[in-house]
């Protein structure tokens, strides 16, 4: 599962950031994981506890924001909701929408002390 790799990447980012801020404890990690990012949020939660054990974020809470998918139609220029990458524009049903939102895979913020 690549959720574990993603969480290992996350740990490096949050520990670097926390140290750069002079913090000694991370209390909450806020991630942004778009609904089209191809990631199982439950698998992320499971991996989070495993990778943060013994780190500055040990015992931290994990909050995951899941932005909805959206896409832009090259034909009519309008933005529509997208639930899967191959969704067509509801007005121009010949073209798949170009994804403009919902693919986020980011550490958004930390609560630290």
């Amino acid at each position: 599962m690549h959720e574990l790799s993603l969480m290992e990447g996350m740990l490096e980012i949050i520990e670097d950031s926390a140290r750069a801020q002079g913090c000694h404890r991370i209390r909450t990690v806020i991630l942004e994981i778009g609904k089209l990012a191809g990631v199982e949020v439950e698998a992320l939660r499971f991996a989070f506890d495993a990778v943060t054990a013994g780190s500055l974020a040990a015992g931290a809470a994990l909050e995951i924001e899941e932005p909805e998918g959206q896409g832009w139609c090259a034909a009519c220029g309008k933005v529509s909701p997208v639930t899967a990458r191959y969704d067509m524009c509801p007005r121009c049903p010949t073209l798949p929408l170009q994804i403009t939102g919902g693919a986020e895979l980011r550490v958004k913020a930390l609560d630290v002390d």
Partner: protein
Amino acid sequence: MCTTCGCQGGGRIEGDGHQHGHGGARLRRVSIERGLLEKNDAFARANREAFARQGIFALNLVSSPGSGKTSLLTATIALLKNRVPIAVVEGDQQTTLDAERIRAAGAPAIQINTGQGCHLDAHSVGHAVERLAPLPDSLLLIENVGNLVCPAAFDLGEAHKVVILSVTEGEDKPLKYPDMFAAADVLLLNKVDLLPHVTFDVDRCLLYARRVNPRLHVLRTSATTGEGLDAWTGWILAAARGAKRARGSHGMPALAPG
């Protein structure tokens, strides 16, 4: 010794650890806004720059297990090895069987065993290529771990992802695994020699694939009969020449590897 990441023996330089604690620490929110894949992406950029310096044209081959990637690779090597130097990175969870097959086909190969890992990442590929030391102006073929999910997210520094789908699989795979078909530039529809024996609907499959990715370039191949392999090797040589032209005079090799 790695000068990019300092991962082999090079001690990582940490901050001085000086902390500004104030007895009763207060909780505060810090905005981060950093991508979970940024480290892989940084290694992928470094790989891409190293490939460009040496004129190496890299392809990342992705598919389900059993799509015929390795047979397609050995057939490709047989057709191209007298025209261009070829080097291969093989990704599998276990065993060096595939690298041995590639070496037997006449190309230098190095195996990366990912263990429990389900994909190759740019960091391990960078080090594998250092060990492999391909000749300047080589074709570098990276056979990813058989998996249509995870390798889609991990840029390795390749020029193109090539997705391989065999006609013994479901024709609806482009819809079931859209991320991979969206990330690829080329689709090889493989094992087409078996079409008379299976119920695979080629038109429907390609309709699905182009729905996910209208720019997808499709080739039909069979490593068994050789069908479509001239078109495939022709595409490789043309794309490599195009990449070199795009680099202009900067495509000249800088220093001999190693």
